[in-house]
């Protein structure tokens, strides 16, 4: 009994000690773990890094909310303060369809009710419910989000707000800065274009014209806001934050008068459509100051819709050099008179002359017999000007060419300006330049030279920017008219002017078509041969650059209008007649507008209803105004704000005038039933859409249904019926 009891005691003693020692081992592990924790915490705090990552830096980065404050791009205004190019925000809509996109509290942030979304969006986007549903159910089942094509882009804030008010789940917007060109086709190449840069968070960057040249002035400087926030976006107290305000871009005021510009655009469009020239240029300039009042080119593009932008990217007014032809005789005549080498009463045999074995012809190869030199300018006789050039000598002529600013940039401040060139080695070359062949000039150089004639011998630098206003400082930089030089005397200038007057009013003058009742006009016409790239010159009736340079009033010119037209495709009229369709009404409008401002006493003329500027206004308010005046309005597009109008501001209105309002948002097809062909063309001008006609009379059928989205790339067939 004692033995087993003692044995059990022993066993129990062993078990007890085993348990204790095991406990000590476990305790040792626990102590070790505690020490590891102490070490680890100290390491993290003292070292400040884990996994080779600096924790302080990383977490600061995480808390920092760094947002860019976009600077407003400056507005480009015309001479009287109408906006030509201004900043606007455009919104693009997108829908999240991924069902995994939920909030932290598991509420869906994706489109839950596709039918409702389609129904609501179809009211604001130019898309049918069916089409929207198709977008919302893409083929790619893993798509996270979908967009709605061009119809979902360029939405205004109003449209965005209207859609937001419906509280649609899963519908979101992105904000992209955009540029509004409310006048559409309006010195488009000269004003230029912008594109949003991917580098600096969608900031707009000028890519053409003044937008490009003055980009740094217009762009301003983006600001930023740096603050430390929690994950809900609330600012953290006691943490530094920094805000640097954006410096808005400066506003640029141009010398362009938008009333004259609009009129010029419509005249140019009409002629362009009717006679289909390869290209045209037109510049209206004030010779006293060099201020460009209107300038444009064809082909052009609609700055707002960008329709036609692909055709010509160059600003042909400064970037194209061409042989100007007979308008150059203005300068050779000036040179001869000013240098005292002009003998108007000398006679010469017109028709043709031979120089170093090459025959130079007058435009009428038969000539006009033996005539005095004084008629050479009026008749635009090349032979006469060969004589004049030979009379003053090559050095004198070259000197005057330089004095008139040729072969040198005008530095008007437009990108890509060319300086021109000349071929002047051989006597033949020298003779040819006297009537504008063998010398390449830009249209801008031509008008610059012409200011000397119109401004009593003082040549003014062409000017497009009149002032720049910095909205941050209020500082205004005004550009004063700049005299380049005085190539000729006042006397010479008036002699040349009267010679130009003769071109219009002498029976044998080449410019009688340019008469404007009520005003004296001084003109020089030109028909320049176009160099054949294969050598020599192009032949054929229309392979010329036709041009006219005119000034009015002839005694003391207020306006110089220079128009060129290259290779008309449809010469159903004489070239002078075609050019006069722009020149005469334009010059008349300019003259009468200055009459208005000079003498308000002129009460004999009937009160003219002219089209007000309605761009930027709300569609409904414009419609009501127009209805009061019994005018028909047609709205194109889904927006609620007018971005373009036809007729343009300042144009005359008749009771039958049809008013077109292009709105923001997607362009949509109006119902054109009963419209005239001219109406449809106007629509084409406004939207950039091409129309094909069949039949005659008024519109009976249109290939694109009303309210469909207009795409400037497709051609719409219109069937007309009497």
């Amino acid at each position, binding site marked *: 009994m004692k033995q087993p009891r003692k044995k*059990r*005691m022993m*066993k*129990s*003693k*062993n*078990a*007890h*000690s*085993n*348990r*204790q*020692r*095991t*406990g*000590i*081992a*476990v*305790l040792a*592990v*626990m*102590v070790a*773990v*505690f020490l*590891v*924790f*102490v070490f*680890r*915490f*100290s390491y*993290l*705090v003292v070292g*400040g890094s*884990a*996994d080779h*990552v600096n*924790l*302080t830096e*990383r*977490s600061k980065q*995480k*808390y920092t909310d760094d947002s860019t404050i976009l600077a407003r791009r400056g507005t480009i205004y015309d001479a009287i303060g109408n906006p030509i190019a201004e900043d606007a925000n455009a919104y693009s809509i997108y829908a999240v369809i991924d069902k995994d996109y939920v909030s932290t*509290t598991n509420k869906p942030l994706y489109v839950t009710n596709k039918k409702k979304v389609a129904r609501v969006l179809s009211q604001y986007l130019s898309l049918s419910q069916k089409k929207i549903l198709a977008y919302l159910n893409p083929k790619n089942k893993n798509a996270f989000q979908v967009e709605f094509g061009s119809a979902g882009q360029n939405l205004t804030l109003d449209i965005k707000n209207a859609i937001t008010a419906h509280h649609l789940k899963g519908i979101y917007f992105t904000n992209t800065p955009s540029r509004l060109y409310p006048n559409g086709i309006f010195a488009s190449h000269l004003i230029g274009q912008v594109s949003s840069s991917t580098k600096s968070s969608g900031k707009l960057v000028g890519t053409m014209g003044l937008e490009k040249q003055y980009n740094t002035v217009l762009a301003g400087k983006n600001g930023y806001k740096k603050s430390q926030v*929690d*994950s*809900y976006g*609330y600012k*953290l107290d*006691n943490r530094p934050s920094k805000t640097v305000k954006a410096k808005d871009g400066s506003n640029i005021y141009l010398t362009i008068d938008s009333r004259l510009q609009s009129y010029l655009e419509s005249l140019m469009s009409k002629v362009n459509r009717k006679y289909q020239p390869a290209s045209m240029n037109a510049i209206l300039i004030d010779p006293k100051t060099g201020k460009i009042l209107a300038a444009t080119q064809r082909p052009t593009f609609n700055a707002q819709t960008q329709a036609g932008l692909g055709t010509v990217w160059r600003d042909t007014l400064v970037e194209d050099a061409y042989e100007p032809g007979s308008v150059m005789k203005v300068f050779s005549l000036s040179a001869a008179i000013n240098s005292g080498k002009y003998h108007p009463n000398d006679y010469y045999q017109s028709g043709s002359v031979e120089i170093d074995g090459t025959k130079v012809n007058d435009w009428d190869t038969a000539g006009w017999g033996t005539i005095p030199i004084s008629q050479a300018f009026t008749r635009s006789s090349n032979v006469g000007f060969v004589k004049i050039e030979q009379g003053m000598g090559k050095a004198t002529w070259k000197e005057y060419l330089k004095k008139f600013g040729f072969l040198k940039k005008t530095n008007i401040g437009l990108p890509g300006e060319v300086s021109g060139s000349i071929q002047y080695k051989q006597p033949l070359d020298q003779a040819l330049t006297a009537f504008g062949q063998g010398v390449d000039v830009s249209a801008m150089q031509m008008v610059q030279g012409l200011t000397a004639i119109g401004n009593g011998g003082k040549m003014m630098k062409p000017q497009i920017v009149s002032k720049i206003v910095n909205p941050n400082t209020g500082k205004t930089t005004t550009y004063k008219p700049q005299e380049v030089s005085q190539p000729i005397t006042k006397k010479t200038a008036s002699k040349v002017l009267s010679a130009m007057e003769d071109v219009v009013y002498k029976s044998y003058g080449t410019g009688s078509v340019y008469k404007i009742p009520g005003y004296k006009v001084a003109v020089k016409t030109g028909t320049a041969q176009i160099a054949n790239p294969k050598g020599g010159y192009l032949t054929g009736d229309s392979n010329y650059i036709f041009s006219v340079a005119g000034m009015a009033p002839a005694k003391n010119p207020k306006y110089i209008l220079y128009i060129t037209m290259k290779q008309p495709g449809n010469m159903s009229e004489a070239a002078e007649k075609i050019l006069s369709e722009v020149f005469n009404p334009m010059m008349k409008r300019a003259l009468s507008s200055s009459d208005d401002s000079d003498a308000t006493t002129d009460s004999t003329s009937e009160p003219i209803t002219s089209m007000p500027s309605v761009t930027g206004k709300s569609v409904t308010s414009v419609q009501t105004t127009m209805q009061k005046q019994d005018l028909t309005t047609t709205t194109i597009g889904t927006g609620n704000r007018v971005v373009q109008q036809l007729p343009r501001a300042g144009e005359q209105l008749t009771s039958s005038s049809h008013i077109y309002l292009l709105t923001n948002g997607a362009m949509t097809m109006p119902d054109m039933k009963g419209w005239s062909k001219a109406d449809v063309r106007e629509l084409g001008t406004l939207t950039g859409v091409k129309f094909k006609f069949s039949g005659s009379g008024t519109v009976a059928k249109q290939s694109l249904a009303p309210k469909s989205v207009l795409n400037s790339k497709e051609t719409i067939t219109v069937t007309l019926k009497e």
Partner: protein
Amino acid sequence: MATKKENKRKKRTGAMRKRFMARLRYLDYFLLIPYLILCGVGVVMVYSASADQLMMNNQSPQLYLNKQMLYVTLSFLLIAVMLSIGWKQINDSAMIGLLMLITYILLFYLVVLKYVHPSSAVNGATGWIALGGFNVQPVEIAKLTLILYLAHVLAKHGHEYSQLKFWGYVKATRKQLVCIALMLAMVLIQPDLGGMAILAFIVLIVWISSGISVRYSVTTLFGTIGIIIGLVFAVIKLKPSFLTSSYKFSRLMSFLHPFQLENKGGAQLVNSYYAINNGSWFGVGLGNSIQKRGYLPEPYTDFILSITTEELGLVGALIILALLFFLIFRIMLIGIRAKSAYRSLICYGVAAWLFVQTLFNVGGMSGILPITGVTLPFISYGGSSMLMLAIALGLVFDVAADEKREQRTPKPVQLKKEEEAHV
């Protein structure tokens, strides 16, 4: 008859009160004081960490504060109840059997629920049973049950086990091991790998402390630790293809490279690091944490120590950790000193429980171990864990009181000698 019964009950409640008062005399203040401080810190930190998020969700900022204070109060009551009942009442075959049965049923219910009604899963794991406003976590009950069960069965045969070789011991306890393995399997199915690991660790500690030769126990302890570390390294190095697609593997990888995999599961650890780093030596001040404001998920449960470190600094965090470990060491010490096997095993089990939860929680938030989603004892918000721990602590208080009383009123000399010899 009725009056007799009533009398009996009166007598029993009277005895219980008398027992509780007697126990208070032998209360172990080395246990009580750290426990009270930790509960207090927990209440304050739960409030600080949860108030912002509650307000963001348009709820009362005091919601979790009030609940946590309720849990702490209930904890104190439960400890009092345990002191009144005493461990001897619980160390009873029928009682243990009943506890085991209840635990099995609850766990089985969860397994069934997982297959019948999978949508009831919270965070991918079905671990909760809603019982009249309370969310009961069966795995928490299982922790307590297993300690009681193992201590009960192993304490009876400790002296026999000391004579056995390792495999003999395994053979001798095979029935119990199968019972336990079944329970662990049910937890694993839920799936709750973390919970299963905690249970397994508690079981391991109690099982090796039954009295078997210290050679085997220590070898088993370090052997198991070694094997686990070895396996993890093998998985990291070899990246076996059958594992790489699993969720656990991605957790392991995001633990190793939290910054590279920040968007694929590393964010929690990264944000925990930021919190610790923000805190620096003395913290940003109570209530001023940035990380709790939406950056760190669950700031008042799994990552409460991260927020605490941010607000109270390294110094504050280490004091809290020191208190927690002091409590654990103290429980171990009571176990080591305990004269009876049962008391000793209870203490080892409870200490192992506290220790392994702390290890997983603190290890996870400080980047030593993968994040397992385990709460920090006494500090984290949550009722189930806190109340179960209170019962466990109640037992330890009772054991400690017994030990103290026996120390003051000397018993047979042999036992005392034995004790002195081994401390």
